């Protein structure tokens, strides 16, 4: 049943370019898809370990910059008269490096803050994102600062026997993002259903008890942070090679907030939650734009957010799943009612 829904959803999403020709909408779907990947990575931390990363965009931005710089090449001077000259490498290598470097950053942030956790983790992640933004803004020699990195090449995929394919069109990028999103979904699904995922859940629900049966807190949480950051880095890399220009604004706090909104409304701790929340809040601005003034769009955006959280406080997917489960157990309830009705008749 669950598998069928998953396959149908993937099939439906894969069919979109066949009937949707509007390039503006395609563009919105691609960027939404990239943000959904980011939201899924955030959900791994927030929904499955209970740790809120309010600087999650840092890993996304680091992935974007690493991937862009790997494929553009750079020439920077370091203190002490050293120079690092890097010749451009294929974007696919940048994609892999983005995951590795972002994952390493996740490791460092996790190691620093998981000794104390909770509010401290939130603060460390916010600070980390701000520091990274300032570096991107001020290390002009490497990042071009506010002038932005431009002309980032599109991703090229080497296909055996078919030669290589450069993904320039929206159609190609749509399928690339969809493929990475599906892979991410599978990875997180496998992870949370393995004993790693159970260790995470255990720690979130009752840390003392989890520790007493042999679960290593620091190791488990750091692992979640590394994987989460690595996925965010992959999303950032896709973003850089699709948009083909990035500047330090990518680190803006609002981007983290967008991901948090996608996770919370969709349902944290549910695999499909960030996808549902992401589609709603990724595409909402697209539909509001033609009918509203810019200021009104933000008000409507906030309104939708409040309504969802008011009606379905645990998030769309968990709340609906709960109602569905209740509805399914109704036949028993109905049986009990008819039984008592018969009793009444017999007594009468």
């Amino acid at each position, binding site marked *: 049943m669950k598998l069928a829904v998953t396959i149908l959803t993937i099939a439906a999403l894969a069919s979109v370019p066949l009937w949707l020709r509007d390039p503006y909408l395609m563009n919105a779907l691609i960027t939404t898809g990239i943000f959904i990947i980011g939201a899924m990575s955030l959900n791994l931390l927030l929904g499955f370990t209970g740790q809120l990363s309010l600087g999650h965009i840092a890993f996304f931005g680091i992935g974007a910059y690493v991937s862009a710089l790997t494929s553009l090449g750079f020439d920077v001077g370091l203190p002490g008269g050293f120079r690092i000259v890097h010749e451009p490498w294929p974007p696919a290598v940048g994609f892999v490096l983005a995951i590795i470097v972002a994952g390493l950053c996740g490791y460092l942030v996790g190691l620093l803050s998981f000794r104390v956790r909770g509010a401290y983790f939130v603060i460390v992640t916010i600070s980390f994102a701000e520091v990274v933004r300032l570096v991107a803004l001020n290390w002009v020699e490497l990042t071009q600062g506010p002038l932005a990195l431009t002309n980032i090449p599109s991703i090229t995929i080497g296909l055996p026997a078919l030669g290589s394919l450069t993904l320039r069109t929206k159609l190609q990028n749509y399928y690339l993002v969809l493929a990475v999103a599906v892979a991410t979904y599978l990875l997180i699904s496998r992870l949370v259903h393995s*004993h790693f995922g159970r260790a995470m859940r255990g720690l979130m*629900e009752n840390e*003392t008890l989890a520790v007493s049966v042999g*679960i290593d807190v620091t190791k488990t949480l750091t692992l979640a942070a590394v994987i989460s950051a690595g996925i965010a880095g992959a999303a950032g890399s896709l973003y850089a090679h699709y948009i083909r220009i990035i500047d330090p604004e990518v680190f803006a706090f609002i981007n983290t907030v967008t991901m948090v909104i996608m996770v919370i409304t969709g349902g944290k701790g549910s695999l499909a939650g960030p996808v549902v929340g992401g589609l709603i809040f990724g595409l909402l601005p697209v539909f509001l734009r033609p009918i509203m003034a810019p200021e009104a769009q933000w008000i409507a955006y906030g309104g939708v957010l409040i309504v969802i959280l008011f009606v379905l406080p645990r998030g769309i997917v968990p709340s609906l799943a709960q109602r569905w489960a209740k509805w399914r157990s109704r036949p028993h309830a109905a049986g009990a009612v008819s039984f008592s009705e018969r009793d009444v008749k017999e007594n009468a």
Partner: protein
Amino acid sequence: MGSAATALKVEQVAVRFGGLVALSDMNFTVGEGEIVSLIGPNGAGKTTAFNVMTGFLDPTHGCVSYRGTALNGLKPHQIADLGLIRTFQRTSVFPNDTVYDNLLVGLHRQGRVGLFEAILGLPRARSSERRLRERASELVEWVGLARRAHDLAGSLSYGEQRLVGVALALAAEPSMLLLDEPVSGMNASETHTFVQLIRNIRDRGVTILLVEHDMPMVMSVSDRIVVLNYGRIIAEGPPDVIRNDPAVIEAYLGQGASRA
């Protein structure tokens, strides 16, 4: 007693919180395969002693060792890896998971497979997963909660939750089990079943240290009893000796009782 090897050894352990002495110069041992109870009035330091033995609290002074390994400075999960597993007085379950899933979390130590094996779903990870599920079903059956297996642990009665807590600890494959007031909140028949359970666990070769207030239960199940008062051991011996020890009677009933 009669057991040859020492499992747990507590030597000169003292715990002070600022000026408050929670434990002072505590010395006792538990032999392999023994059932030992640690009793004493409220505030005597029983739970503090448990916390020291399982790494949740560092002693101010002294040393605890298990099967020859000093536990000082080890984290709780490392002590669990030595086979020393505890239960808790209050928070004994993962309330938002089913009983069955609780036990799967408890089986963490048995299910360690590589990260990539787990993510890629390689055969070793899958067969390990299958083994864990079988083991969880066995355990749920063994503690008599099979029909509650798919209910949320938080929705169970207090007594049933204590059973889940014990099953969780058993899932971690202990060689020694520390039970912190396991029968508090249980009715007489639940307690009776629980005593049987403890004996069964011991017969599987698990050493047991018990903190408990229910005296009839302690007297019936223990091989040996250690009595704490104000952080000090005031008596130690088999149930019959403890029952008639004047110091123990005084600690529980006040001075007048021992004179009378």
